[in-house]
């Protein structure tokens, strides 16, 4: 008797779902996305695919980085830092970010990171996915996919040619993860890896975490970052594995291994520089060049 009731409830739920109009709430402002919103054309064509998650108003708030002011750190305005301390010194090829870190974006990120509203993840990952191709095409050359030639090459499209060979992320300390329940950089990396079908490898660990990064000044950051990261104990081995698998797949010799380093925000770059320093020391395990590019959701 009792069970029949429960099945009834289940059916009611299903039928109710089928009959009620599909109303979806905007992830950001939680107001329902109206149907006629989708008729509105966003400013840029690729924003259209965000419109299933976010309402028109919130999409238009996104300060995309559409023109690079600095070819190295991906800032939207000219950047004196990169002239003084080139990223190359820390063997970071370049950085690219999806949005400018303005007040609105700060609010989004704090909703996600500090308040723990995990649905923001969907939007942010989608944004990183959308902006990837235009941004990274300014860093890496497209690989001509001669592997199969012919028809499959057509389907693989432009995106596939500049995808990284390996994705890794900026780690967080154990304690922080315990409190927060997730590491945002890892979440981004894993989601992107799933979408692109690229391996996501944990190559780094964080050893110290004196103060929260967002509460520190530039000098403090530089200083505290310099020894904050270490290579993960299995880093060499996992890298080797990826490399071997990659070489086996690719017929022609590959010039470089492309590593994408994911983080949420690039502020002074000290975190990413420190990570990249550690990563570059991994090169000795490999007999080829490694090209490390960092990709973040926002650029301050």
């Amino acid at each position, binding site marked *: 008797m009792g069970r029949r009731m429960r099945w009834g409830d*289940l059916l009611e739920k299903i039928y109710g779902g089928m009959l009620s109009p599909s109303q979806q709430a905007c992830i950001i402002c939680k107001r329902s996305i109206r149907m006629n919103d989708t008729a509105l054309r966003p400013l840029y064509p690729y924003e259209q695919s965000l419109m299933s998650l976010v309402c028109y108003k919130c999409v238009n708030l996104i300060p995309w980085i559409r023109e690079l002011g600095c070819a190295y750190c991906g800032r939207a305005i000219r950047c004196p830092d990169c002239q003084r301390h080139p990223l190359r010194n820390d063997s970071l090829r370049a950085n690219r970010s999806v949005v400018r870190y303005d007040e609105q974006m700060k609010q989004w990120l704090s909703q996600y990171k500090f*308040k723990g*509203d995990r649905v923001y993840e969907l939007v942010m990952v989608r944004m990183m996915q959308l902006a990837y191709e235009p941004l990274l095409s300014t860093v890496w050359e497209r690989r001509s996919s001669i592997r199969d030639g012919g028809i499959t090459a057509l389907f693989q499209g432009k995106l596939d040619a500049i995808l990284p060979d390996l994705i890794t992320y900026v780690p967080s300390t154990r304690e922080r*993860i315990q*409190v927060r*329940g*997730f590491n945002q950089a890892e979440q981004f990396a894993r989601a992107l890896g799933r979408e692109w079908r690229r391996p996501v490898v944990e190559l780094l660990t964080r050893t110290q975490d004196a103060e929260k990064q967002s509460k520190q000044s530039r000098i403090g950051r530089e200083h505290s970052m310099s020894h904050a990261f270490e290579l993960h104990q299995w880093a060499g081995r996992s890298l080797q594995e990826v490399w071997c698998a990659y070489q086996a797949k690719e017929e022609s010799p590959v010039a470089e291994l492309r590593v994408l380093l994911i983080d949420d925000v690039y502020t002074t770059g000290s975190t990413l520089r420190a990570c990249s320093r550690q990563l570059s020391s991994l090169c000795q395990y490999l007999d080829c060049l490694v090209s490390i590019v960092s990709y973040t959701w926002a650029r301050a």
Partner: protein
Amino acid sequence: MVMQVRIYAVRTEYGWHSGITVDWRIDVRYWLAGEGSLPRGSKLVVLHQQLPIQVGIAVLEHFMPSEAMERWGEQGWVRYFADILSPCVEEFEEEAKRRLMQEHLAVAIIEAPYSEPTSKLFVMEEQKPMYRVAEQSLAYATTQWDANSSGLPASFLGEGVSQAGVWSALHADAYRIAYGIRGRLLLDEELIQFLRDAGAEHLIASRYSLIQWGWLHGWVELRAGMSFTRRDDGGKLPTASRISPLKRVMRSLYKASVTICCGRCGSSEGLSSSTCSTCHSLQCWTCTQCLNVGRCRSCAILIAGKLYRGDDSAAALISNREEQLEKWGLAPAQLEASRQALDYIDRVRARNQFAGLSEMNTSGRRSTVQGTRGNLRKGAFLLWAVTGAGKTEMIFPLVEDTLLHGGRVLIATPRRDVVLELKPRIEKAFPAQKVVTLYGGSPERWRDGDITIATTHQLIRFEEAFELAIIDELDAFPYHNDPMLQRTAERACTPGGVFVYLSATPPEAMQQNVRRGKLSHARVPVRFHRHPLPIPMRITMPSVAQCLSAHGLPALLLARMNHSVSRGAQLFVFLSRIRQVDPLVRLLRERIPGVHIDGTSAADESRGDKVFQFRERNIRVLVTTTILERGVTVPMSDVFILDADDRLFDAASLVQMAGRAGRSKDDPAGLVVFGSPQWNRSQRSAVRQIRDMNRIAARKGYLLSGADRRQRIG
């Protein structure tokens, strides 16, 4: 740092019991150390692995004592724990699951130092060191906690302390914390904030030990952030035997049909699940409904303060009821309503005392003190008072009455401005009592007061805290149609406590209950100045949109407005759309020159300032939307509602807006105008409600006689 729990079984003289612990050393102490007498238990079996709270609590529900437990050794216990664990960790990451498989589990069997070993498998010497370790590892720092800041009466300090040294200090500190958070429902982060605010920073590190001690004494409860609401047939618990695969399937089906809900705000919708690195669950739920007052997720721990004040203080001296009412200087209608409410509260109290007594007699054990509380019903009373009736004054006698009975009082209102406005008035009326105001960002958030004035959102941190809960304007914006706020308000009142709802326009469902006699109520049909409510007059005019596009207003409306301005009144002009506010302000400025006209809306940042200017008569005409429909009192004001037939204006909001007029004693007859192209149902209903109230007032003789009224106006 992160709160994880362990589970254990304990053998007492009544049999085997299960327990959950955030600090197992405390439990060892509690159960196995005799305080001058025999220890409470003889044997403790602690599962070594730490579990996320939701798993711990689920496992406890599956615990079934059995005869065989006496004979079990480590193996037996490991097998048993593995059995009851396995259905609870289904949705966990592989790694976490593996960690909790039978091969990896370990238990510690701890026996009291001087008790007979109940299990022959173990030799005495093996257990004693274990106990010693537990005993000694707890280095509890005894430092003075500023007793004043916690507001703890001195008489509590000595109570129940029979141990020397650290344990008595621990006992006292745990009691203090429990006393401080009584009636509250806190997340771990909030507990830290509470301790910091109470000046007890040094207790933060050892808070788990204290909480655990409180849990063992029944002073606090531990809960998971998310709970399952299940249908009543929850009798499918595993026996001590292995769980068959069939049962496992049944269980997962059963689980699928169970709905999950937030343990804090009670929402079962708006939960989002994700993988979580804290508890290693693949489906750790986060409640998005109450996210902006802190993140409540499956693996978060909720601490509920369950320490109650003794009920015997009810014998306090109560002076004569009439004297008690007299001193507030209420008008006859107010007096009558307050008296009715007090009578109702008395009835509820008497009923509960009776129920409590009979319950007490039937079951003679100590623990029933809390058991009976759950059976007590909450009372509800509606004070249906017209706008400007003087609701605040009417609640004074009720507040006083509850305080005299040793209860705590809550006054909940939807808006922060009202909280701040009420505070000085309440403080003036009750100078001897501690009044605490709670709102987002309030500095007194963790203080403990006799009278608490809070916005409705703050109630999420309370549970069974108040004997009298006064809910103001329950039909107003955030409270109305928000089941979460209604649930939390419901919960904030103790069992056997009383709700008093205040409203000028109760929602339809409540009015129905009143008509059917299901809800006790008192009606206050007249304002404190004993003049009738102004009846809205009707002006047929084109809609505001048409007026704006034609760039003109009807002559009749302008004449009325001019008349009001020239008689020295302040004009409220209500609109339905924010976007029409500015154009109408411009139009009015043209048509009524020489008068300061301004507009404000929810989108306006300088709203508070403009309202202030309006009160100060610097702004004479204020164009606004429904945001100012309630809570604003401006002496000598007239009200113009344009587009009164708009569907955004229901009868309740029309009554509220009309209620802005004629509130002061000096100008009791304000002007209310409904300007609209058509006369619709809400307008009719609003006018009828106002007329009804006036009629009732006249019949009961609350209104001043005509001659009197004229004389007053002069």
